[in-house]
């Protein structure tokens, strides 16, 4: 009975190819959207998580920020984007923070894009000026040579560590150790090459040169501030207290008694992760709700077509009843047909969704992002589940209409 109904449904679907295709289109779009949202969202989330993880556990960040004053957060964000320069965050702030009891280690950071030259090879790349503690906190590993030391930082040593991609670009297969590269006319001795860390959200950490932050301030950039810092704590359980202590300390030092005047922002990684999870949750919900509208419209379309189908096949239904089909026989026949139509839509939707997600992943990877292709099993389950339940919901009314037909009346209908 079931097998027969399934075969019958597929036959009917194939008999009206164009109509079937149009019928399921709405639902295909909806399910495609759900799959893409989950897959792309999953990739983005994994990416953000690995970015957060790259700072290591039990760390927090202090960054500069434009004071809010009376402006809205929108104008704050735009002034940041337009390059408003906050120069109040100094390495001396970091020295003071390091004296706090739960603070274990810390490094300050500056970032700049510069021309890096080796012999006649010149490449534009990121200069990441960091304290030597970066090696310990970020658990950076060197492929060859070594990372620079605290002493070299304090002594304004002109030493550099290369990311593996930049090393390849400048030196090819040659050994770069003890060779000299030039950053803004300053010669730096290469002392190490890092292991690959993969591309991060904003910059490719492998295509960069790392130099001591003080050397960068005095000899390259001619500034005395930093833009951000990463701080490692002793006890991760006291994170909230430490964030408060650092905030207090910074307020005193920067003479910014109230939050709206603050020119810095303290974020713990856990806090960042929670915030991201919340935003992601809302965003996913919103997008799925939008896709849900498409599913609903698709479902109503399918219901409509099933009503037409019942009407077209009134005569067949009458005949089936005359030879002994019960109401529930007819009800199930149409329910199964609707479900199969919707299930086909679900499978086609999942196929397109996966294809589009894969394409996004390939394109994103090609233009330099690390964007893994995530197989969204949850979305596929949701897609199939939605399909089957929508088949029942939108199939039940046409199927009941068919089941309740009077056989004598129905057979007169041709």
């Amino acid at each position, binding site marked *: 009975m079931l097998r027969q109904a399934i075969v019958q449904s597929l036959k009917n679907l194939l008999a009206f190819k164009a109509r079937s295709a149009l019928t399921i289109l709405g639902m295909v779009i909806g399910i495609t959207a759900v799959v893409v949202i989950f897959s792309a969202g999953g990739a983005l989330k994994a990416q953000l998580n690995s970015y957060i993880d790259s700072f290591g556990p039990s760390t927090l960040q202090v960054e500069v920020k434009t004071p809010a004053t009376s402006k809205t957060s929108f104008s704050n964000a735009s002034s940041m984007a337009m390059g408003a320069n906050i120069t109040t965050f100094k390495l001396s702030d970091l020295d003071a923070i390091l004296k706090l009891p739960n603070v274990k280690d810390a490094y300050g950071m500056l970032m700049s894009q510069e021309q890096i030259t080796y012999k006649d090879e010149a490449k534009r790349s990121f200069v990441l000026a960091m304290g030597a503690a970066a090696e310990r906190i970020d658990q950076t590993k060197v492929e060859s040579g070594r990372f620079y030391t605290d002493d070299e930082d304090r002594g304004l040593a002109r030493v550099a560590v290369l990311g593996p991609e930049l090393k390849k670009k400048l030196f090819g297969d040659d050994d770069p150790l003890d060779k000299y590269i030039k950053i803004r006319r300053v010669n730096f001795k290469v002392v190490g090459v890092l292991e690959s860390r993969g591309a991060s959200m904003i910059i490719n950490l492998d295509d960069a040169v790392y130099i001591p932050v003080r050397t960068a301030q005095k000899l390259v950039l001619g500034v005395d501030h930093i833009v951000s810092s990463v701080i490692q704590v002793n006890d991760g359980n006291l994170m909230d207290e430490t964030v408060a202590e650092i905030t207090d300390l910074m307020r005193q030092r920067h003479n910014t008694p109230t939050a709206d005047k603050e020119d810095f922002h303290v974020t713990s990684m856990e806090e960042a992760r929670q915030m991201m999870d919340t935003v992601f949750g809302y965003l996913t919900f919103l997008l799925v709700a939008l896709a849900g509208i498409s599913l609903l419209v698709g479902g109503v379309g399918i219901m409509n077509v099933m009503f037409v189908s019942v009407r077209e096949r009134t005569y067949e239904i009458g005949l089936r009843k005359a030879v002994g*089909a019960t109401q529930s026989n007819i009800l199930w026949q149409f329910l199964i047909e609707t479900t199969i139509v919707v299930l086909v839509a679900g499978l086609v939707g999942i196929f397109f969704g996966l294809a589009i997600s894969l394409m996004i992943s390939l394109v994103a990877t090609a233009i330099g992002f690390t964007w893994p292709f995530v197989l969204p099993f949850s979305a596929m389950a949701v897609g199939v589940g939605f399909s089957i339940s929508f088949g029942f919901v939108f199939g039940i009314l046409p199927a009941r209409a068919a089941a309740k037909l009077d056989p004598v009346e129905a057979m007169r209908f041709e």
Partner: protein
Amino acid sequence: METLISIKDLTKDYELEGGVANILRGVSFSISSGELVAIMGPSGSGKSTLMHILGFLDRPTSGTYLFRGRDIKTLSDDELARLRNKEIGFVFQSFNLLKRTSVLDNVKLPLSYVGYKVTDGDERAKKGLDAVGLSHRLHNRPNQLSGGEQQRVAIARALINNPSIIFADEPTGNLDSKSGAQVMQLFKDLHHQGHTIVLVTHDATVAHQAHRILHVMDGQIVQDEKISGG
């Protein structure tokens, strides 16, 4: 002979706009197994409605209908459907075959609703089609067949569950005289094999091939005529 059908004071009313139409006005008779009966009357006399009630496709407004001694008033719609499947074979004027379905599958259609899995469906259908002389048409579509052939497919379908009684509603109405004669001969053969057959017709020539004619007029039986050697 066992009494298959026994009806008493059967009426059927239809609600119409501005009144009630009394299609059947107190009909009583009985049919025994093995009979070849014609229900004859002009169009609008109520003979088709009578056949629908006798075949469990419709219910009477009042009166009693005993099928093999069982009062059908007490049966649910689903029980009637199962009874139709098991006990009744229908042959209609316009054949009523499924157009996009092969001859073989059309004949097998009632087997879908017997309530258990039929394993020898193909064999039974082939045998039935062989009996009506269509074993060479198994995989054709109905629209590739002549009218007479289509009606013979319908007869094979009516017989597939080996029913107690066959109702044929104007079975020759859409056929030329030659095909009509073939179909009538088929009914007579079936009758000789012991099948109970009820022909519903307005055509006196058709009716006179039965052994008994129930004349219907304005919703009543006006004459119960026995035909000798019909």
